[in-house]
C-alpha cells in the first residue's frame, strides 16, 4: 500500500478523474435529452390521442338494461312479471382474499356449491377490471339485513337491485311461457353484444324464447364518470332504454288452471283452441315444473332431478309428445270415405270382430271381442269406434286417400304455432315409407293406418288443430298463442267437402257423446249444450296375434294412452280440444271427463255464442 502511495501522481490522477467525470456528464446530458424527448413525444406529439384515451378511461358508457316486456293472458291477467331482485355481486379486485370472502358470505347467508361454481366460471370470462360478478341473486330481506350489518368487513361485496322475471303461474304456464335464464357461454357467442349489454338473462324456452326479440326491448345508455374501481362518481348524460313489447295471449289462465286441475295426478296433455281464430285457450303438459326456479339459476341437483325424472316434467307433451292418434282419426277418414265415394251413408258392413285382407291369414282385430255385429254404418263405426269398418274402407280407399286427408287436417306437418320447438309427427304414405324406412308399402300398413295406429304419430296440438278443422267445416288455421293486431284473419285454406258430409260427421261425433251406445256417453250427464267428440286409445306395446290385452297384468307404464278430441257447441262450434292421458287406458274413462270439465268451464266463462276473439274483446 505504501508503495502505491509513493508512486501516486496527484495532478495526473486528478486529470483522469476530471476527464472521466466530464465524460459522465456528457452521457448524463444525452440521457436527459432522451428523457425529455420521450416526455415531449408523449405530451406534445401524442397529446391528442392520449387525451382521448384519458377521457375514455374516465368516461364510461354504461348500458342501461331495458325492462323486459310483460305477458298477459286474454283477460289481462299478468302471467310474466318483472320484480326487483337484490343481488349480491363481488368486485374481485377489491376483495382481499376471494376464497375466504366467499366462505365468510357462506357462513353469513349461505352460498350453494352451484352458485360458487357459476361465480368462478363467470369470473374467468373476459371482463373489464372492477366489473362486479354476481354471486347470489334474489336475496331475501333477512339476508340483505345480515349483509348490511357485516358490510364493513366484507370488502368487494356489493348489493345491487335488478329487475328479475317472475311467473305468478310458475307451474301451470311453465311449458307455454318457458322461462328466462342467465346467458351462458355458448349463447354469448351468437348474441348481439350491444343489444344484450347490461342484460343478464334471455328467453331459454317457450314464448320467452320465441318472442325474445320483441320482449327484450332496446338497450339504453348512460355516460358516467368512474374511477378505476368502476365506482360511479358522476352521471353525465343518459339515453333511456325502450322497454320490450308486452305480449297478450289468447290463453285464459282460468282455463289453463282447469286443464291442470282436471288432469290431476295423471301424466298427459290438454289443448284447447278457439276455433274462430286458432288462438290457444289452454295448453297444458303434465307433470310440470316451476319456471321461477330457472330464473335465478336452478341448482344442479334440482336440475338433474327434473332432467332424470321418468315422468319427464321438462318435456312439453303438447308440442313435442308424439303419440299414435288411434281412433281419434276416424272422423277424418270417415269424411274421406264419404268424399271419395268409397262409402256413402248407406254403406254397411258386418263386423265379426276382425278383418282379413284377401289371400292373407292374419286377422286384424277389432278392439271389441266378438265384434260390433251386423249393419254397421259409418255413423255406427264412429259412435262405437268400430275398427273393422275402418279397416275395410281404409283398404278400399288406399293409403293415398288416407294420407291426403290426414295431411289436409294437419297430420304429419308442423302446425306453425308460435313456439320455438314443435314436432311434426308422422302421416305415413308410400313416399314416406320409402324415404324413411326404405321399404315398399304393404296393404297391412294401410289396415293399421286406417285406425290411427301403425306408423301414424301426432302431437296433441296437431289433434286439436285437426278437431278445429272438422268443427269449422274445413277452415285451415294455424294455432297461435300471441294475439296480433289482426285477430281475425281469413283461414289460410279450406278443406273442400259437402255440407251434407260435414253434417254427417258432426252428427256422428255428437252421438259419440250424446247417445247411449257412444263411447263417450259417460260425459253427457247434465249437459245443457252439445259436445261432439271422439275417443281414442293408443297402444304403447304391440299385441301379438291371438293374445288378449289384459289391463290388469300390464304394468301401468305399459298401459295404453287414452285420447279424446272434442268440439262444442256442435251447432256453432267455438272451442276444440284434444286430451291425452298417458297410460290412461281408455279415452272414454280418463280423457273424456277432462274435456268435459274444460268445455264446461269455457261455456261458463264465455256463455254468449259470439266468437270470443271478436272486436269487442277486451285487450
Amino acid at each position, binding site marked *: 500500500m505504501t508503495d502505491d502511495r509513493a508512486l501516486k501522481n496527484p495532478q495526473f490522477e486528478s486529470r483522469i478523474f476530471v476527464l*472521466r467525470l466530464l465524460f459522465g456528464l456528457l452521457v448524463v446530458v444525452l440521457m436527459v435529452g432522451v428523457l425529455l424527448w420521450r416526455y415531449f413525444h408523449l405530451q*406534445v406529439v401524442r397529446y391528442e390521442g392520449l387525451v382521448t384515451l384519458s377521457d375514455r378511461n374516465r368516461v364510461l358508457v354504461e348500458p342501461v338494461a331495458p325492462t323486459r316486456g310483460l305477458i298477459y293472458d286474454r283477460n289481462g291477467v299478468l302471467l310474466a312479471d318483472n320484480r326487483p331482485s337484490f343481488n349480491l355481486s363481488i368486485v374481485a379486485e377489491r376483495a382481499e382474499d376471494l376464497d375466504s370472502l366467499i366462505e365468510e358470505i357462506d357462513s353469513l347467508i349461505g352460498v350453494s356449491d352451484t352458485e360458487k361454481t357459476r361465480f368462478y366460471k363467470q369470473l374467468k370470462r373476459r371482463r373489464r377490471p372492477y366489473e362486479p360478478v354476481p354471486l347470489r341473486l334474489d336475496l331475501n330481506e333477512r339476508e340483505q339485513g345480515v349483509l348490511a350489518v357485516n358490510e364493513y368487513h366484507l370488502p368487494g361485496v356489493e348489493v345491487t337491485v335488478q329487475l328479475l322475471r317472475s311467473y305468478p303461474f310458475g307451474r301451470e304456464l311453465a311449458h307455454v311461457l318457458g322461462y328466462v335464464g342467465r346467458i351462458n357461454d355458448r349463447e354469448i357467442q351468437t348474441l348481439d353484444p350491444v343489444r344484450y349489454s347490461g342484460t343478464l338473462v334471455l328467453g331459454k324456452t317457450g314464448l320467452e324464447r320465441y318472442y325474445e326479440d320483441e320482449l327484450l326491448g332496446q338497450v339504453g345508455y348512460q355516460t358516467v364518470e368512474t374511477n378505476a374501481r368502476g365506482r360511479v362518481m358522476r352521471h353525465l348524460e343518459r339515453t333511456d332504454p325502450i322497454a320490450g313489447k308486452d305480449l297478450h295471449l289468447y290463453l285464459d289462465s282460468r282455463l289453463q288452471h282447469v286443464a291442470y286441475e282436471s288432469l290431476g295426478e295423471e301424466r298427459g296433455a290438454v289443448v284447447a283452441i278457439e276455433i274462430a281464430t286458432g288462438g290457444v285457450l289452454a295448453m297444458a303438459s303434465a307433470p310440470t315444473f316451476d319456471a321461477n326456479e330457472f330464473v335465478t339459476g336452478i341448482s344442479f341437483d334440482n336440475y338433474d332431478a327434473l332432467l332424470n325424472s321418468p315422468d319427464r316434467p321438462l318435456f312439453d307433451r303438447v308440442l313435442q309428445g308424439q303419440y299414435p292418434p288411434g281412433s281419434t282419426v276416424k272422423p277424418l277418414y270417415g269424411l274421406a270415405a264419404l268424399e271419395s265415394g268409397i262409402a256413402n251413408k248407406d254403406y254397411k258392413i258386418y263386423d265379426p270382430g276382425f278383418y282379413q285382407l284377401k289371400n292373407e291369414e292374419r286377422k286384424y282385430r277389432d278392439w271389441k271381442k266378438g265384434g260390433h255385429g251386423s249393419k254397421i254404418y259409418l255413423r255406427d263405426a264412429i259412435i262405437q269406434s268400430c275398427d273393422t269398418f275402418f279397416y275395410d274402407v281404409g283398404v278400399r280407399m288406399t293409403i293415398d286417400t288416407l294420407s291426403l286427408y290426414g295431411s289436409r287436417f294437419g297430420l304429419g306437418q308442423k302446425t306453425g304455432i308460435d313456439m320455438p320447438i314443435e314436432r311434426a309427427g308422422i302421416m305415413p304414405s308410400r313416399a314416406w315409407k320409402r324415404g324413411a324406412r326404405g321399404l315398399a308399402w304393404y296393404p297391412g300398413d294401410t289396415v293399421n293406418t286406417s285406425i290411427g295406429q301403425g306408423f301414424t304419430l301426432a302431437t296433441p296440438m296437431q289433434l286439436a288443430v285437426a278437431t278445429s278443422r272438422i268443427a269449422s267445416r274445413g277452415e285451415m288455421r294455424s294455432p297461435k298463442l300471441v294475439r296480433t293486431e289482426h285477430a281475425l284473419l281469413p283461414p289460410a285454406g279450406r278443406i273442400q267437402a259437402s255440407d251434407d258430409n260435414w253434417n254427417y260427421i258432426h252428427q256422428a261425433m255428437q252421438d259419440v257423446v250424446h247417445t247411449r251406445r257412444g263411447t263417450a256417453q259417460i260425459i253427457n250427464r247434465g249437459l245443457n249444450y252439445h259436445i261432439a267428440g271422439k275417443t281414442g286409445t293408443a297402444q304403447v306395446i304391440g299385441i301379438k296375434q291371438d293374445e288378449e290385452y289384459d289391463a290388469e297384468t300390464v304394468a301401468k307404464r305399459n298401459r295404453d294412452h287414452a285420447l279424446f278430441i272434442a268440439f262444442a257447441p256442435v251447432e256453432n262450434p267455438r272451442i276444440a280440444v284434444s286430451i291425452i292421458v298417458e297410460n290412461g287406458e281408455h279415452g272414454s274413462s280418463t280423457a273424456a271427463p277432462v274435456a268435459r270439465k274444460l268445455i264446461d268451464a269455457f261455456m261458463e266463462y264465455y256463455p254468449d255464442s259470439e266468437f270470443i276473439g271478436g272486436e269487442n274483446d277486451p285487450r
Partner: protein
Amino acid sequence: MTQGDFVRHMGSAGSGFYGTSRQWHRVYLDLPLLLLLMLLAGAGLFVLYSASGQSVHYVNRQLVYYAVGLFVMLTVAQIPPRFLERWAVLPYLGGVILLIGVLFFGVGAKGAQRWLEVGGFRFQPSEILKFAVPLMLARYLGQRVLPPSFKHVFFALIFIIIPPILVILQPDLGTAILIGISGFFVLFLAGLPKRYLGFAGLAAMVVLPLMWFYILHDYQKQRILTMFNPEADKLGSGWNIIQSTIAIGSGGMQGKGWMLGTQSQLDFLPESHTDFIIAVLAEEFGLVGVLLLVGLYLLIIARCVMICLGAQSMFGRLLAGSITLTFFVYIFVNMGMVSGILPVVGVPLPLVSYGGTSIVTLMLGFGMLMSISTEKQRAA
C-alpha cells in the same frame, strides 16, 4: 463526532439561517445543495398531496421521513472524509454479512426475501450496500496508482460483484443492478482503461442472453416484454404502463392543474404516490412541470459536480462522483420506466416518491457529499 458537538457548532453559526455559505461550512453543510434539496422536497410534498388523493396522512409521514433524512444527512456531514475512508470497509463487510443473513433468515412477500427483522424492526440490508459499495471502492482505488492496474481492476470487480450477486438471489434484480452500477462508476471515474470497457461490452453481450434464460424470473421477463408491447396484457402488467403514459401524455404542455389529473384522482394510475408519482406531476403540471423538475435535478447534479471537482482527496472525488452519477441513474430509471422506455423495476423518484427507505438512503449519500465538500474547512 457526537451530537453535542453538532449542537455547539450550530450555535456558533451566529447569524442563523441567513448566514453565508462560509458560515454554514462551519457546521460542514453546503448551503446551495441544502436549499436545492429542500426546494425539491417542498415541490415533492405538493405533488404527493395530490397524488395520494389529498391525504394529509401521507404528507405528514413524508414530512417525518424528510426530517429523519435531514437529520441523517446533517449527522453524516459532520463525519470527516478521512474518518469515512478509514472505516469504509465496515459497512461493506457488515452489509455483505447481513445480505447472507437475508438469504437464510430473511422475511418477505411474493416469493422474494428482502428484509431482515430484528426486534420487530424491518430493514433491507441491500439499502446499506447502495452507499457501502461506492465507499469501499473509493477507498480501495483512491489509495492505488491510477489508472488502476489489471490486478486492482480485478479485485475492484470482485468487490463490486459480490453484493449484487447476493441481492439477485433474494431476488431483487433492480437493486442489484443499481448497486453494481454505483461500484462501477467508482471504477470508471478512477480511470478504468478503455480496453476494459470494450471487454465489459463484450461480456455484457454474452451475459445478458444467459441472464434471460437462467437468472431472470418469469415476472421480470414479463416486465421487460411488457415494456416492448404493453397492449399484449392490457389488464395485467401492461395496465400500469398504459395508464402512466396516458397520464403523462394527457397532461400536455400546461397540465390539467393541481389535483385535477383525472388519471391519478380517479385511481386509474397505480402506485401514483410512490414509484409512478412523476406521472401525476406530468399530468397535472404538464411538460412545463416536467422541465422544472428535471431542471431542479440538474441543478442538484451540477452542485454535486462542483463538490466533486473541489474534493481534496481522490477518495472524496471518487465517492462524490459515484454518488452523483448514481443519483442521476435513479432519476433516469424512474422517469424512463414510468414513461415506458425502460422496464418496470421498482425504483422511486429520488426525494419525491413517498417512502422513508429511499429518502434516508439518498440523504445519507448527500450527507457524505457535504462532508466531502467541507473537507477544506476541516483541514484548516
